[in-house]
């Protein structure tokens, strides 16, 4: 089993799901509560990675990372190297790719909070920020946890985008799914099987832990 690929994958998934939680909460809040007419455009953009083949996303990212684009040139002049085929590039690609998996469950649980509770919070002197921290977020805990777990799981399992923008550099961009693909390509079936099993067990344990712990969150709801 390739331990290096496994730790790299987990590191990537932890960073991505942590950042997505920070970015996903305000996006989900805006998508849920904004009364802007053009809101649906943002919703569509956030959901795009769900329908696009990873290769299409990967292709556009490669173009954006390249020296032809303003972003690519800016990054290159700052750091001296391009984003393509680096761990940072992989993080950015995964963030975009997994964004809907974080935003959608969080937005759904925000929208499920009874609007009367928000009105009650306001009449008790709490503004938007306080209402978010004291009412919306605690009542949305299951959705927030689901968003974090889904973006973690989705990042662990991604393949197409990594292949397009990260290539296959051991310790930098060779994630566990690429590693398994590599082993199968070189007819290394025993090792591929071992790695696949390790990934399967790891994912199962993480998901069971999260859902097991999260069950208690529902006790917050009144039994009506």
């Amino acid at each position, binding site marked *: 089993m390739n331990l290096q690929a496994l730790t790299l994958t987990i590191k990537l998934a932890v960073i991505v799901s942590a950042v997505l939680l920070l970015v996903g909460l305000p996006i989900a809040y805006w998508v849920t509560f904004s009364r802007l007419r053009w809101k649906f455009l943002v919703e569509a953009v956030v959901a795009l990675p769900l329908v696009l083949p990873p290769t299409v996303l990967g292709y556009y990212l490669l173009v954006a990372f390249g020296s032809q684009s303003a972003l690519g040139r800016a990054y290159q002049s700052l750091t001296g190297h391009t984003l393509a085929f680096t761990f940072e590039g992989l993080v950015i690609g995964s963030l975009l790719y997994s964004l809907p998996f974080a935003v959608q469950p969080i937005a759904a649980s925000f929208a499920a909070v*009874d609007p*009367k*509770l928000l*009105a*009650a*919070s*306001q*009449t*008790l*002197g*709490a*503004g938007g920020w*306080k209402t978010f921290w*004291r*009412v919306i977020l*605690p*009542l949305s805990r299951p959705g927030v946890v689901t968003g974090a777990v889904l973006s973690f799981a989705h990042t662990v399992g991604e393949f197409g985008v990594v292949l397009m923008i990260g290539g296959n550099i051991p310790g930098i961009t060779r994630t566990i799914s690429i590693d398994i693909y590599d082993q199968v390509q070189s007819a290394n079936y025993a090792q591929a099987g071992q790695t696949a099993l390790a990934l399967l067990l790891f994912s199962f344990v993480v998901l069971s832990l999260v859902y097991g712990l999260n069950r208690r969150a529902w006790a*917050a*709801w*009144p*039994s*009506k």
Partner: protein
Amino acid sequence: MAIQVTPTIVGADIETTRRDLRVRIRKSFAGGFTLDADFAASPGITMLFGASGAGKTTLLDCIAGLQRPDSGLIAGGDQVFFDSSTGADLPTPLRRVGYVFQTLALFPHLSAADNVAYGLVRKPPNERRRLVAEILERFRVSLTAPRRPSEISGGERQRVALARALVVAPSVLLLDEPLSALDAATKSHIMDDLRAWNEAASIPILYVTHSREEVFALGDRAIFLQQGKVLAEGTPHQVLAAPQQEAAAQLAGFENIFDANVVALHESQGTMTCQVGNSGFYLEVPLGRIHKADRVRLGIRAGDILLASKKPEGLSARNVLEGTIASLTRRDVTMVAEIDCGVRLIAHLTPGAQQSLGLTPGSKIWLVIKTYSCHLLRR
């Protein structure tokens, strides 16, 4: 006591004190509905009465700042909440308005004590704890303090919701049918505690209801709202018992409403005789400011009609009429009798009375209706 014409009191004409809630607003909706309300509520309980869709909740939402009127003025205590002439529009968190919703909207993830403490974040922790303990005690729910809303009874939930709204010392309290789900005894105990609390606080309390019983039982004053407009304002009795408006009459529980012609005036007795429709059904009713041959509309409550199996004699009641029972239906503990006496009348009696009189459909029956049980609804 003849029916008196009670002029509708309009908010702008009332001398208001700084404790009053003053509302004069207009708000139009796309469907054609317009809320156009003008009234003042002084300290005490004012019942805001009307059918569903009359604009009661919209009115409360405008006062709390959850909806925005198109124009007008709202002021309570020493705050101007909204004034379209100056552009003032205080955000909800800054309005000192307590609001208890129909669903109560207790926070399900917080204990009763934390719900009550929610509006007190700016107070130091010691004072916060003292205030919460005090008000829970006042509303007799100290024991629920550590429990979540899902773990306490319906009546306790109402009490916690009231405590939560009042602990922040609002200058106006809005209640949107908060007690509609409770039995009468629980309801009146809660209202007694609310009254006791308001003896010291002395703020205007606006209580929304569509129940006539609640208006009589709970209100010091009443406002009757219909299709977004204040139709009548006064004591519950003025607004409901002798209603000038037919809509109020139907809501006020007149099961029998008739169009009638005035056939004779008896000015010395303060009564007049009316013929109902073209039937041979004549009623003696209180004299109104009216002429012979005028058409009037009369309302009689089903509970005000007395039934007798033999022709009664020696009564003060002026209307003793013969009829036949057309149908009898039981509704909870009330028997609803439909009686044919030239016109159809609905009368209520108890199941016991029905049995002792041996009433069945087809039975001959005598109806006794007091003159003052006939209410003049419209000239």
